């Protein structure tokens, strides 16, 4: 789960980390009010969306004229922001963050991530601040500095000092950097963050470190123990269908093709998309109905699939392990009847009680095309779209 910049900065502030004075607004008038109350003569108006790359597409505006703040906020609020990290539709701007401007002496990249390769937390830093860090890693890998925390020993100040030196932080800046890093580490553990990114971390006009931007991602699996953070969730920033799916315990990802898939198991769901692609089709979604593919879940899955207007055909691919194929077949039949589906449905069943399952589909009188195996299913579903 991602947090907005304004939420992340509030958390930074509460954790004693250096952020600029600022406030959030949901209307142009409110934006002006917030701006008036900041002790500054330069203002930044920042669109709050769950995506990076805002600056390049007009999502961050700076002004020295207080009266301009309202207009800048007006131009953003209610619009959608398309950045290179969003899809073609972009994300809605429902909040703007008004922040006091500052002089920037130097910019750095700084983050703390859960590093799957090292199986621990890793700090990532670079003197190339404000840039797309993946591009920096690709073009100039020597400019990326890392420190992985040994989980059995915990954070080591000496290693942080070394990191500070590599970034050329001298005297008090080195101390500020160590303090900042320690606080980020404590915070990440406390709030179950799997990413805290500060890009850029800057040296301001008074020669102090300051978090100019901040991004926090909370581990989804840990939300059960972070009720306060869960309240900060902004469903407006999430794909509607993906959200509906997750409320039904389904895992769904929208794609841009026209063949919908319904599969049990995440791996098999991906493999099914791949099969469709191999045979010349284009998947409309990833959908894992999970191990217990009950009638209710299958029905909910059909509903979600059909809300995508691009869908021309559906491929159901189930390997019945613990769940029996005949039970799944009943689920499919019920769901098709209740949802009144008119587009072709190709079903591939395999596993426990597969013969019974196929028989049920056949005897249902519904126009369900049964496939003999994986390849047959992919070929048939691609054909059904072509017709």
């Amino acid at each position, binding site marked *: 789960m991602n947090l907005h910049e304004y939420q992340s900065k509030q958390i930074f502030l509460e954790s004693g980390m250096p952020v600029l004075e600022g406030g959030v607004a949901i209307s142009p008038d409110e934006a002006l009010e917030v701006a008036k109350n900041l002790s500054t003569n330069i203002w930044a108006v920042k669109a709050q969306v769950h995506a990076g790359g805002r600056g390049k597409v007009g999502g961050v505006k700076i002004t020295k004229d207080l009266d301009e703040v309202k207009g800048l906020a007006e131009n953003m609020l209610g619009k959608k922001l398309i950045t290179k*990290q969003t899809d073609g539709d972009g994300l809605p701007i429902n909040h703007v963050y008004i922040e006091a401007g500052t002089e920037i002496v130097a910019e750095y990249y700084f983050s703390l991530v*859960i590093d*799957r*390769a090292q*199986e*621990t*937390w890793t700090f990532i830093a670079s003197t190339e601040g404000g840039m797309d860090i*993946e591009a920096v*890693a*690709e073009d100039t890998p020597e400019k990326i500095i890392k420190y992985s925390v*040994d*989980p*059995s020993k915990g954070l080591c100040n000496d290693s942080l000092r070394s990191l500070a030196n590599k970034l050329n932080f001298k005297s008090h800046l080195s101390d500020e950097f160590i303090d900042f890093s320690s606080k980020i580490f404590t915070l990440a*553990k406390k709030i*179950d963050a*799997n990413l805290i990114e500060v890009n850029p971390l800057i040296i301001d006009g008074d020669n102090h470190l300051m978090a100019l931007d901040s991004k926090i991602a909370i*581990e*989804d*699996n*840990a939300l*059960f*123990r972070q009720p306060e953070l869960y309240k900060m969730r902004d469903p407006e920033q999430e794909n509607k269908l993906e959200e509906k799916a997750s409320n039904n315990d389904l*895992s769904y*990802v929208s*794609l841009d093709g026209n063949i919908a898939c319904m*599969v*049990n*198991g*995440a*791996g*098999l*769901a*991906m*493999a099914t*998309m*791949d*099969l*469709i*692609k*191999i045979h010349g089709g284009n*998947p409309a979604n*990833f959908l*894992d109905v999970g*191990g217990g593919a009950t009638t209710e879940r299958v029905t909910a899955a059909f509903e979600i699939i059909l809300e995508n207007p691009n869908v021309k055909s559906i491929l159901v691919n189930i*390997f*019945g*392990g*613990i769940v029996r194929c005949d039970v799944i077949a009943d689920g499919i039949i019920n769901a098709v009847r209740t949802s009144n589906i008119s587009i072709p449905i190709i079903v591939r069943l*395999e*596993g*426990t009680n597969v013969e019974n399952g196929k028989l049920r589909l056949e005897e249902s009188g519904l126009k369900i095309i049964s496939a003999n*195996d*994986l*390849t047959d299913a992919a070929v048939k579903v691609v054909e059904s779209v072509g017709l």
Partner: protein
Amino acid sequence: MSVLINSSSKILCQGITGSQGTFHTDQCIEYGSNVVAGVTPGRGGQEHLGVPVFDSVREARENLEIDVSMIFVPAKFASEAVIAAIDAEIGLIVCITEGIPVQDMIAVKAKMQDSNSKLIGPNCPGIITPEESKVGIMPGFIHQKGSIGIISRSGTLTYEAVHQTTHYGLGQSTCIGIGGDPIKGLNFIDCLELFEADSDTKGIVMVGEIGGSDEEKAAMFIKDNISKPVVAYIAGVSAPPGKRMGHAGAIVTGKEGTASAKYEALNEAGVHTVDSLALIGKKMHSVLK
């Protein structure tokens, strides 16, 4: 022979009295697995599914010989359960539980640094040596004793690989579902090493998916250390970057973790890769001919 488990493996189930624990332990016993005890705090002294229940892993261990612990404890408490098994020096820990916070897994891995325990999972179907012992949630009947070792990050894809190798009459020596989480116990390399040393295993199937770089590391390892033929399939060629595809670990971040990078590494290592899931069994059959 087989790897990690066989008919004589003595199995403990942590979380045996819960609904998942009860259902699947019962299925394991039915398959022929040698389940000797269960653990549920507060239920010590009772009997469940015909085996004694203890309050703690330690007490079970003090009273009985135990080789394997199978964990069905809910995600909230699962890392504690794994650590309890590590503390009790259980040789093999199989954690089925899905949804464990990744920070908890960092703590588990730290704990494992000074331990001889091996961990499979979490978020996995478990491990099975066909016709001998099943420790997990896989459908037993699709398996057949044979010569292929299977290693997979995904449950249902393991079943597909099993189904196909059974269909071609190859059967399986042991199948290990290593799980779909980013931080986990045994990885591909650990399992490849085990299968290389196992005289019953003639060929190895590796089923990977997008995310991380375990498949690339495995490819490097195979090049220098594995003499047996390896057939590999990677799921997620068509997955968009930045999106989590069901499994917590299945996400392409930046340039890392793409299926094409993994295929490239595996091809370079001389692995027999297939681009379609449907071809795993056929490929292994033709390679071993």
